[in-house]
């Protein structure tokens, strides 16, 4: 098609981007406002709200919990997810399509339904402390990312290199760790980072499973904005946006951001 999109279409696209980006810019600007309430345009210029984030222990504590859950849940999901991804890509398994769907089930089940069901099962059947429960639940919600992204990476790997290593005398395990894994390293890093941000952003599952004294950062933010409306939460938002940018840089270097448009 030699015709470029016309002015009208381009205009609509730009407006959509204004819609997508302005809210974040407004939040970022209000974080620097020298007022007790959220003001846009910001009045004055201060970084005291950022200092306040680090002074409120609830934010620090919940961030620490969130970070532990995100790293721990992601590592656990890779621990079981990489072998599954390898099996799905390397061997001819029965019912491959059904199996692949099975491993993305945690995305297909509505998160509030999973959160509620996990709580209800734990409350009435087992007595498991809050943190391990959260950790297992977060492992489940990020597992599909581990399996899918690593599978996508393995799909581009030529397994004859592994065969060669084995025929030259390497054990299966040695061949996997020395030949296969190094070749899909970028896929594993991308899976890690996508799983990490998914866990860190989760609200619906944590909502049901957090308990006395143990809260995650998004849950803490959720209860904070329902009672307070000052720029502290905007400052937290800015810090999280900076982290998102970091995540995007890593994804771009490993998986390529075009992964999201396919």
């Amino acid at each position, binding site marked *: 098609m030699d015709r470029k999109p016309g002015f009208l279409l381009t205009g609509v696209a730009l407006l959509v981007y204004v819609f997508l980006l302005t809210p974040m810019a407004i939040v970022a600007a209000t974080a620097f406002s020298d007022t007790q309430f959220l003001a846009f345009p910001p009045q004055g210029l201060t970084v005291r709200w950022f200092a306040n984030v680090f002074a409120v222990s609830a934010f620090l504590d919940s961030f620490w919990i969130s970070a532990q859950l995100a790293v721990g849940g992601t590592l656990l999901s890779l*621990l079981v997810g990489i072998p*599954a991804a390898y099996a799905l890509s390397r061997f001819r398994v029965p019912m491959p399509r059904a199996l692949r769907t099975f*491993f993305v089930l945690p995305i297909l*089940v509505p998160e509030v339904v999973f959160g*509620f069901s996990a709580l209800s099962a734990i409350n009435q059947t087992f007595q498991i402390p809050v943190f391990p429960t959260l950790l297992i639940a977060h492992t*489940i919600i990020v597992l599909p990312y581990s399996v899918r992204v690593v599978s996508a990476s393995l799909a581009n790997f030529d397994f004859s290199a592994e065969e060669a290593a084995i025929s030259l005398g390497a054990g299966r395990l040695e061949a996997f760790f020395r030949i296969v894994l190094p070749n899909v390293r970028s896929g594993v890093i991308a899976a890690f980072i996508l799983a990490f941000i998914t866990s860190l952003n989760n609200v619906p599952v944590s909502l*049901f499973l957090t308990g006395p004294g143990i809260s995650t950062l*998004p849950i803490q933010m959720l209860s904070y904005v329902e009672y307070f409306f000052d720029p502290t939460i905007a400052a937290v938002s800015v810090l*999280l946006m900076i982290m998102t940018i970091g995540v995007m840089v890593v994804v771009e270097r490993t998986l390529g951001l075009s992964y999201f448009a396919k």
Partner: protein
Amino acid sequence: MNRWLPLALLLPAGVMIVVVLLVPVGRTMGLTVVDQSPWWSGYVATLSDPFTQGVLWRTLRIAALSTLIAAIIGFPTAYVIARSPPRRRSLFIILAVFPLLTNPVVRAFAWMVILGRNGFLNDTLVGIGLLDAPARMMFTEGAVVVGFVYLFSPLMILSLVGVLEGIDRDLLDAATSLGASQAAVFRRVVLPLAVPGLIVGSVLVFTGSFTAYTTPQLLGGDRNTVLATLLYQKAMVQLDWVGASTIAVVMVAMTIAVILVMNAVARRLNPTVG
């Protein structure tokens, strides 16, 4: 090769999904029918309650409207991205992915700042004289729809970019040289070929809006309860576990139904869709 090796590798993740996800969700489903006689009486009780019916319809209405708007604004945007030179295309995609990876509490909070009584939009509209007094924008269905369109339209855009890029330019040239108008090319060539992306995007936006908790909680408030917030209230405030389980089953059933219906629609619009 040991024939049990694939099974052994699949087993840990598989067991985890069964034990942690499927058993508890299955148990939730069981909770709605045991101790009830006849077994469906719990559903009758929950679904005949006018309040719950109102919530169900509101949730469907909000999700359908959000999906429609996301498709309407997403299509031209994706079209422009798909026709952009590579560097600009990458920039567009980065800017669409950025909100997608940002914390949903942050994204809903942004709209609280904009739509509040003394928020940015009211201030601006009153300032330029379009409004005499601040209008009520927060805690309305409209606010929830705006929040959802904001939250999920990147998913629609990204789903559409993929398929629109795959459309062979020669096909469009052929249609034009055979005398089709711009509008006819769009309606009879571009649109049918974009159906798979449109369906994927719609399923993502609809199921996302249908089951989201954070956005309706923060932007809709107590007056605009949706299924997800109702489920939470029943479970955590009223401690009505059977009622909450019933809502959970309704959510799962509706999600599956929507996916099936949309796939059926896709097959009718474009017979090559699998």
